[in-house]
């Protein structure tokens, strides 16, 4: 609610000041927003902003000197590395030092004290966004921004600061700095999208989260179907939380006339793990592709390695092995990005290994299709692939949500202990913190979400079709959505934050 008032206040000022100052309004409100979370945290935001601004400008300066190509390149590379080290170093220090100390202590039976560091909100998001910008300047995709305040807005734009989407400078800069006049339809769309986001967050995610917290928090007390139910609830919770959060973020940005990148595209309809990562947290995936996967795949040592594998394993398999290796590395980074814990590394490795395996086995698959006469274009096969992917994704959640890597393995084993479908009907699910009516609301909410997703998947633009409906119908839909929040929203005591804001 406070956030809504903050957005309305920002929008009010944004549209009454002369349009050429609008970006300054966004910058000021962004800093107020971040300072509200803790004034000390501003230091880290400023650190990233200033070091990235400085190193990018420096690279630009080297470009315009008349040194020869080789020495320019070496200097630019050094500056880039300095910029990357400063920022990823800061991220590593804040996010991973305790993990390192804990493991070092365990390994060498030492007792170094843990550091008492608060993780600045959204640091993983704004660091990645800034480093993407720096690397782009290094590659010459665009020139460095000259105005430090304008650059500061790119790093700190408040809707996306906490949980993304991870933006690109070339897509955002012109939107920030062009003049926006008030457009009622656009603002209406923005509010509409925010409400849809809050619906997913409050009605679905926070409710499903009750069971997740109970079962995963006390995992040794549960087994069999109860764990399966909790994992499925986590599928609902995480999607509702993150995708709902993104709808809020994109809706807010839309109110200011700014279109951010989409982060989700019906991920649970994916037909493979590769496809899943093209639909789930899309901006992290494309970041990884551009700034980790390609640099690794295009590097000289990978090129060498590819030549060796081609000689050893033949052209077909040989060309796939380097890509498979690059994918595993990328997903280890994705794992580490999520947090400093072995379970996240395993989460990344699991995804990377599945994708690598799929690449390597593709020729075998094709043969199998021929031998078993499977029509890979058929509807049944498509549905089978969706279900298979959904199963694999749910297995990955064990690593993501369990309290530790050991706990995730223990829970996998426990899933098979005394497994029975009776758990679903004998009322034991009602002892996990949710009442019967909560399950009914969840089921209805999921049904709404499912219908919306199917429509979208089939290319229906729901907003546009809603726009074409008579005013009365439109407003009924809005009222239903808005009313559903206080009536059906699961209001957590102490307020539930967004999961991804912790990363």
């Amino acid at each position, binding site marked *: 609610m406070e956030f809504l008032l903050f957005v309305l206040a920002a929008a009010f000022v944004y549209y009454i000041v002369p349009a050429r100052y609008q970006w300054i309004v966004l910058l000021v409100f962004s800093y107020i927003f971040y300072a509200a979370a803790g004034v000390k945290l501003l230091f880290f935001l400023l650190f990233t902003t200033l070091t990235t601004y400085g190193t990018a400008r420096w690279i630009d300066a080297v470009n315009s000197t008349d040194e020869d*190509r080789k020495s320019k390149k070496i200097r630019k590379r050094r500056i880039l590395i300095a910029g990357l080290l400063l920022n990823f170093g800061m991220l590593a220090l804040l996010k991973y030092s305790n993990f390192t100390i804990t493991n070092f202590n365990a390994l060498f039976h030492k007792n170094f004290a843990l550091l008492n560091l608060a993780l600045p909100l959204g640091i993983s998001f704004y660091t990645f966004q800034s480093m993407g910008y720096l690397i*782009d300047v290094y*590659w*010459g*995709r665009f020139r460095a921004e000259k105005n430090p305040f304008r650059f500061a807005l790119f790093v700190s734009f408040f809707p996306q600061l906490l949980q993304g989407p991870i933006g690109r400078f070339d897509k955002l800069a012109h939107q920030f700095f062009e003049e926006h006049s008030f457009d009622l339809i656009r603002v209406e769309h923005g509010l509409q999208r925010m409400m849809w986001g809050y619906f997913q967050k409050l009605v679905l995610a926070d409710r499903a989260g009750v069971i997740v917290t109970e079962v995963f928090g006390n995992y040794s007390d549960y087994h069999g179907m109860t764990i399966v139910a909790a994992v499925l609830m986590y599928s609902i919770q995480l999607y509702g939380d993150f995708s709902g959060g993104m709808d809020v973020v994109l809706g807010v940005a839309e109110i200011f006339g700014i279109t951010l990148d989409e982060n989700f595209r019906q991920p649970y309809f994916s037909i493979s793990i590769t496809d899943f990562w093209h639909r789930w947290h899309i901006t992290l995936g494309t970041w990884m592709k*551009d*700034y980790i996967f*390609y*640099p690794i*795949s*295009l590097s*000289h040592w*990978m*090129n060498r390695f*590819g*030549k060796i594998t081609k000689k050893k394993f033949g052209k077909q398999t040989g*060309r*796939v092995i*380097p*890509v498979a290796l690059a994918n595993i590395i990328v997903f280890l980074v994705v794992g580490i990005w999520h947090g400093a814990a072995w379970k996240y590394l395993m989460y990344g490795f699991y995804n990377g290994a599945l994708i690598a395996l799929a690449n390597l086995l593709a020729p075998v698959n094709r043969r199998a299709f021929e031998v078993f006469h499977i029509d890979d274009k058929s509807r049944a096969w498509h549905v089978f692939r969706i279900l298979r992917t959904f199963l694999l994704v749910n297995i990955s959640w064990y690593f993501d949500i369990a309290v530790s890597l050991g706990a995730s393995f223990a829970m996998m084993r426990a899933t098979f202990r005394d497994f029975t479908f009776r758990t679903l009907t004998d009322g034991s699910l009602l002892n996990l913190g949710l009442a019967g009516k909560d399950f009914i609301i969840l089921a209805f909410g999921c049904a709404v979400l499912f219908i919306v997703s199917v429509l979208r998947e089939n290319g229906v633009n729901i907003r546009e079709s809603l726009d074409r409906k008579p005013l009365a119908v439109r407003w009924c839909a809005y009222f239903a959505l808005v009313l559903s929040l206080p009536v059906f929203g699961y209001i957590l005591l102490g307020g539930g934050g967004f999961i991804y804001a912790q990363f």
Partner: protein
Amino acid sequence: MDKVLEILEEIKSGVDFENEKGLIDNDILDSFDILSIVGELEDTFDIEVTPVDIVPSNFNSAESLWAMVQRLMEA
């Protein structure tokens, strides 16, 4: 230009690389082929291809590849 054709032929035989204008758009080359091609081009012409260059328009025909190589040799 002949060198580019040679590399393409080596990576995927049986394609009319001289005339084909939609190597990417018509799904003739996949992502594995692209990475192999880039590796060969880098070695042969001593250039550095960055992710910025990995866009369909650079890979759709032998000509566009050759244009990219020439541009990178001068850069």
